């Protein structure tokens, strides 16, 4: 069974940070990466991200599915950018250095390649951090950290429960799908028409939804019977006070964000332009 979205328990400095710290860092980090088009900063961030990954002791093999998934998404995104606006780079950077022509309006320019390099770097800067967050934050800490940054604890808890049940539901889906295959239902075969395959998938989804509803009803009753939702606020058994490393991590991310904003002024805009 492959884990797609799951907490992986290890002993590492990254795991030791409180959930709230990690969530804050994730938000600030992504904001810095998303808003900046400064290639120098975007080149440094993936390096930092992969160093952090190494520090966390999470092995690539443990999260490869998530990586592949986002990688495919990145490639797709880049293809689509080129397909729909092959001249985007030239409008941004103001020059047009033609390298070669593929056909019709699809001309490869250095500016477009440079622009898309930035897009790729943004992916590389954020993906490892998101994966790192998911795999080093245990779901109930995630709930308490959401709550700590101001999200209502009821919403925070539903998010964390949903995350927690993903592995269970994956296992259940696997069980249901083999039992259905035993009745002749085929899932992963190229022989069938797409519509039929979708119909078959729906046949498997029906029992999955019914049994998930049962599960939700049980957990909801169990929580209510123990006073969940009684007060506007609640306390957290596993909440931890911030340590020095928490403050340092947040400070580092804020500096990163400051650099990202500062570079806008230096560059006189969002983009770092090597073409002028």
């Amino acid at each position, binding site marked *: *069974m492959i884990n797609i979205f799951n907490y992986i328990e290890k002993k590492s400095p990254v795991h030791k940070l409180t959930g709230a710290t990690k969530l804050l860092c994730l938000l600030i980090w992504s904001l810095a990466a998303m808003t900046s088009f400064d290639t120098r900063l975007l080149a440094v961030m993936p390096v930092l991200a992969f160093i952090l990954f190494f520090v966390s002791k999470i092995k690539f093999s443990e999260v490869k599915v998530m990586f592949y998934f986002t990688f495919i998404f990145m490639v797709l995104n880049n293809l689509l950018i080129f397909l729909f606006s092959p001249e985007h780079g030239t409008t941004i950077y103001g020059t047009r250095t033609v390298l070669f022509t593929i056909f019709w309006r699809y001309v490869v320019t250095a500016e477009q390649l440079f622009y898309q390099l930035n897009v790729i770097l943004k992916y590389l800067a954020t993906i490892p951090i998101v994966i790192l967050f998911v795999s080093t934050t*245990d*779901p*109930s800490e995630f709930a308490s950290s959401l709550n700590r940054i101001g999200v209502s604890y009821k919403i925070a808890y539903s998010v964390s429960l949903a995350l*927690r049940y993903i592995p269970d539901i994956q296992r*259940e889906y696997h*069980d*249901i799908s*083999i*039992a*259905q*295959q*035993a*009745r*002749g*239902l*085929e899932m992963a075969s190229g022989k069938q028409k797409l519509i039929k395959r979708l119909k078959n998938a729906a*046949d*498997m989804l*029906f*029992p*999955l939804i*019914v*049994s998930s509803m*049962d*599960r939700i009803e*049980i*957990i*909801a*009753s*169990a*929580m*209510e*019977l*123990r*006073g*969940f*939702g*009684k*007060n506007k*606020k*609640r*306390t*957290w*058994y*596993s*909440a931890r006070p911030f340590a020095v490393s928490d403050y340092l991590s947040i400070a580092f991310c804020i500096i990163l964000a400051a650099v990202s904003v500062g570079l806008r002024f230096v560059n006189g805009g969002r983009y770092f332009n090597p073409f002028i």
Partner: protein
Amino acid sequence: MNNPEEENVIEFRNFGFKYTAQSEPTLYDINLKIRRGEKVLICGPSGCGKSTLAHCLNGLIPASYSGEATGELILDGKSFKDQNIFSLSKFVGTVLQDSDGQFIGLTVGEDIAFALENDRTAQAEMKERVKAVAEKVGVGGPFLSHAPHELSGGQKQRVALAGVMVDDVKVLLFDEPLANLDPATGKTTIELIDEIHKNTGTTVVIIEHRLEDVLHRDVDRVILMSEGRIISDSSPAALLSSDLLIKYGIREPLYITALKYAGVKITEEMKPQRIDTLKLSEEDKKKVLSWFEKAPYEKEKVSEQIILKARNIDFKYSDEGRLVLQGINFELHKGEMMAIVGKNGAGKSTFSKLICGFEKPCSGSMELNGTDLEGMSIKERADHIGYVMQNPNQMISKPMIREEVSLGLILKSSLTPQQIDERVDETLKICGLYPFRNWPVSALSFGQKKRVTIASILSMNPEIIILDEPTAGQDFRHYTEIMDFLSDLNKRGITIVLITHDMHLMLEYCSRAVIFADSQMIADKSCEEVLTDSDVVEKACLKKTSLSALSLMCGIKDDKDFIRRFILTDREVRK
């Protein structure tokens, strides 16, 4: 304590309840008083209203289920109308039946603290209270940082109990605490409840239909319910001396049934509530002895023909993982009905998945009717071997019964629509579902849904059907219905394999049991041999039946023989 009125912690006065979604009330004229410190068992077949009663006590009615109540219910000195689920949670602590489903925290400590967190208790106080209550139920110290999946079934029960006791509740309510537990864990759970009751003096209400298992420790009263009414409210001894249990579809303790077969009259003076309090006169013992000598005895006949054979099977889920199955050698005889038994995680379900081709063994071979199974796909094997999952909701994918039963046949598509219709009709008739053929599945009871899943497998004409816990969570009547049906199918020539930890099921219906423990197959014997072998019983988390103790009490040395004769007589009587 001078005023006896005050001693009642729970009091129903002419109480009735009707769910909004139903036309008939579920509870009628309930009059019931439960005194402080009492231990009460509420027992009855499914649908008798015992769960509804429990929901009225803990406030899930009206919080989660709406309906109309009549009469009065006094809880903690106040009318139920002036209470809600949150105020009641301080008074009644509910332990639900599914200890996995109710685990909310990610560690034992966090889970126990859940109620305190919702009460906005300061962290330091919370840690202290969690520690104290965890020690009280025996999951203190290093356990506090354990995750739920690192715990055994019994430990999970303890955590669930600690999670409600942390609130200092006055009443502990157990909603079917034995469902889904293996016999050995069930036994320790009952012992734990008893220990907590004795040490804390908390009022205990247990909702359960497995009477003999609950009576393993004393209870003050048993309330028998049926069709929304209280039938009797008496001491366990008085109830066991009456005929009410059989009349209302509750399984009697096995030793009581055996005594009745022997012609012994059960009276309150015999203290029949537990096998270890039971007093038999010399005359009674003689009756048992002479019944034993006269009772029919024959060995189980097993066909010589081997339908399925497994040789030296090893299996692990991943390359680094531990062996889940190790050196399994297994033979299935044509036309038999047998059980694969073992505690959770012993590998019994995994083994059945290997047979069906859901997983591939690491080494070893399997043969079906002499043909090697290797290389056969799930679908190809499914023509011969059908697999019925434990939870019918996981299998049913069509809204209508007829559609569901024909699904597999339509997908196989080698049959004409007319042939499919004929086959489906025939299957529905065999399964007793023909009158409901055009009903929606959602209108059926759990037992009927189970039948639908069996029918949908049966329509494929398999030679072998493997069922995972076919009767889990079923009361005696539904259990008997499902098992008699399976036994009919077996008589039609279908080989049946049951994966179970229900001892009654293996004893009453199976000719043979193989026992899995710690990834190995440790025994392959007749069911009575299994249940009288102390070593096997312990390793497989089973427990000895009360029949062994009864035979010993009556001076019969060979308890195996005694059990065998009892089962044969029982099958005869039940026909």
